[in-house]
């Protein structure tokens, strides 16, 4: 206990030092032209990164002129762009789609949807609004230019006589001339999100079949995993299963604590590896291994719980004189069947008001409870290696008649139990 404690202490100390290291980097003195350029370059970089991560499904509109707004709708004057936030508010209101289409009126100007360019021999008079597109200026624009969710690219020789305002874009001046001021809001929420029509909700029968298929699929997968586990790791599965049977409360408490400590432990692992320098190389592998271990413990524990349930049920049936083959495959099938019953019930009756929700809640609660117990049992038994909590190391005085009566002492089942691991059962 001492060594892990000391290690943990060192780890915590190093962890506490991390922020200091992070803040100890020499700060840039933003004075002079270089600093200003640096800041400018940084600001230019941000939207590039942001743009590269935007939703690829965002439709790129076909370039077209935007129709005028209906009568009664207020136009958006672009004569004075100095009050840029006011323009933004007006545009937000005006560009709200009506009947799926955007309409806007720009006094003394035009509005375009999608990319738009002014040719080198071209002169556009009046203000220009470009929505969701890039405005490439090779020629002359005699007026103000506003873009919404789009950039302005001013090419060499390009002229904008007035001001430029970008709402959700940037201005790239590649050698053009801008008569007025340039104002840039790199993030703006002028346009409403594109509303994707939702598919019609499925019918009740379809819902039932879907849910049934889903539940059956999940439990078939769990069954397949369980069979594999029985085939290749039965001793471990049995130890975890016995831990669930004999130390249910402890297993649940351990599982609960384990869930709470999952993230902190992961954080400590990552920090520890980073601080150990050499461990940085191992970080990706460690992350993957950690995730796999957690999944294996959770799924394996859940299967062990199913195994324990099945075993208990089968033994009770045997005790009543019902002839059945007591083997791990049967235990697993019976246990999983019992667990699946909740979800199958929800699949069938989930559409019933109130009762459906109650069944679903019960299914979730029971599944979580048993999964937590299984996870805890897997932790307690060290994935089936440690038998302390499995009730297998029973002192001779505990071998009561009832115990011996309920436990098969002869036959295939008893013979198949590993003698070294089951001293009390193999006798």
């Amino acid at each position, binding site marked *: 206990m001492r060594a892990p404690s000391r290690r943990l202490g060192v*780890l915590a100390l190093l962890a506490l030092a991390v922020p200091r290291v992070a803040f100890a980097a020499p700060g840039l003195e933003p*004075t*002079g*032209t270089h600093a200003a350029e640096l800041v*400018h370059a940084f600001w230019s970089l941000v939207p590039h990164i942001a743009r590269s991560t935007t939703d690829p499904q965002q439709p790129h509109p076909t370039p077209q002129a935007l129709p005028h707004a209906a009568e009664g709708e207020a136009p958006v004057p672009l004569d004075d762009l100095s009050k840029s*936030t006011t323009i933004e508010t007006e545009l937000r209101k005006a560009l709200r789609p009506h009947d799926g289409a955007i309409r806007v009126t720009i006094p003394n100007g035009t509005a375009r949807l999608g990319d738009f360019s002014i040719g080198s021999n071209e002169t556009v008079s009046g203000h220009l609004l470009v929505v969701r597109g890039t405005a490439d200026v090779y020629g002359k624009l005699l007026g103000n230019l506003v873009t919404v969710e789009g950039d302005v690219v001013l090419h060499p020789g390009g002229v904008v006589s007035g001001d430029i305002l970008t709402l959700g874009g940037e201005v790239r001046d590649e050698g053009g001339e801008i008569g*007025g001021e340039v*104002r840039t809001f790199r993030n703006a929420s002028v346009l409403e999100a594109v509303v994707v029509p939702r598919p019609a909700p499925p019918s009740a029968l379809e819902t039932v079949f879907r849910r049934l298929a889903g539940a059956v699929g999940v439990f078939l997968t769990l069954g397949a995993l369980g069979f594999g586990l029985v085939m290749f790791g039965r001793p471990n599965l049995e130890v975890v299963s016995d831990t669930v049977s004999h130390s249910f409360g402890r297993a649940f408490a351990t599982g609960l604590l384990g869930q709470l400590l999952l993230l*902190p432990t992961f954080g400590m692992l990552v920090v520890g590896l980073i601080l150990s320098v050499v461990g940085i190389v191992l970080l990706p592998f460690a992350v993957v291994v950690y995730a796999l271990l957690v999944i294996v413990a959770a799924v394996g524990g859940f299967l062990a719980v199913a195994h324990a349930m099945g075993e208990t049920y089968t033994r009770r049936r045997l005790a009543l004189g019902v002839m059945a083959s007591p083997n791990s495959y049967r235990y697993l099938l019976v246990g999983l069947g019992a667990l699946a019953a909740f979800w199958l019930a929800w699949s069938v009756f989930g559409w019933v008001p109130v009762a459906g929700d109650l069944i679903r809640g019960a299914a979730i609660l029971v599944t979580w409870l048993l999964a937590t117990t299984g996870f805890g049992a897997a932790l307690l038994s060290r994935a089936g290696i440690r038998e302390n909590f499995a009730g297998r190391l029973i002192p001779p005085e505990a071998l009561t008649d009832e115990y011996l009566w309920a436990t098969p002492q002869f036959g295939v089942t008893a013979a198949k139990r590993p003698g070294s691991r089951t001293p009390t059962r193999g006798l």
Partner: protein
Amino acid sequence: MRRALAAALALVLGASGASAQTMRPFSTYRQWHGETSTVARLDFAAGALRLAAGRPNELYRMDVLYDGERYEPVSDFDAARGNVTLGLRAAGDGGIRVVSKRQLGQTASVTFSPRSDLALAVALGAVDGDLDLGGLRLTSLDLEAGASRATVRFSQPNGARCRDAVLSSGAAELTVLGLGNSRCDRIAFEGGVGRVTLDFSGTWTSSSHVSVKMALGQVELRLPRQVGVRLTLDKFLATFEAEGLVRRGNAYVSPGYDQAARHLDIDITTAVGGVTLDWLE
């Protein structure tokens, strides 16, 4: 063990606790079209401000990250008069009170062209400011620092002759470095409570008159030896040691004051506090 575990837990949980703020970036600039003079006003209520000389082909530029819920950026150029107003103003009914750390997290970087004469007026609220005026063509400066901690520096000689520099502060800590590079004929400082450091190092090309009025606080003067210094002091409960100066009538003068090519005349009025002198070699 427990402490270590708690510390590690705190680190892990703390790392995820940092929430993203809704700060908004805004940029504005204007190309330089041969303007010879600009009158600029910069208002910044809260946050960190950096001001410096910028690109020659840009008359001005401002990159700001601001709290969009309480402020809105100001960028207005009057081409007829050559006036520009930059900064942040209160949006809605929020006022300019500093109510959250978010506002103190606002940042602004402002640059002006070194080609155009600049008459600059700056009003700061609760600001951590670093104003490097070196390399600009400053013709006048009016700085109001409310409750700020500001450093004004002239890292390079001023490109133009500066008529006057008026600095005022409420409850602030103000440091002005390299005033010798400022080329200002008249420098005036008026402070309420706080601490002011006036550093007169730099390349002196003309004489200057400095007036300092401080109600309650510390005035630190860093004086160059190559300039003839004359100091008059009107104090009530303030301490002063005329180290390196000799008394002449109502004033203190540096040795060789009359022979010096450049003169620095300082009038100090202070009530409570102290005036200290440091000589620069």
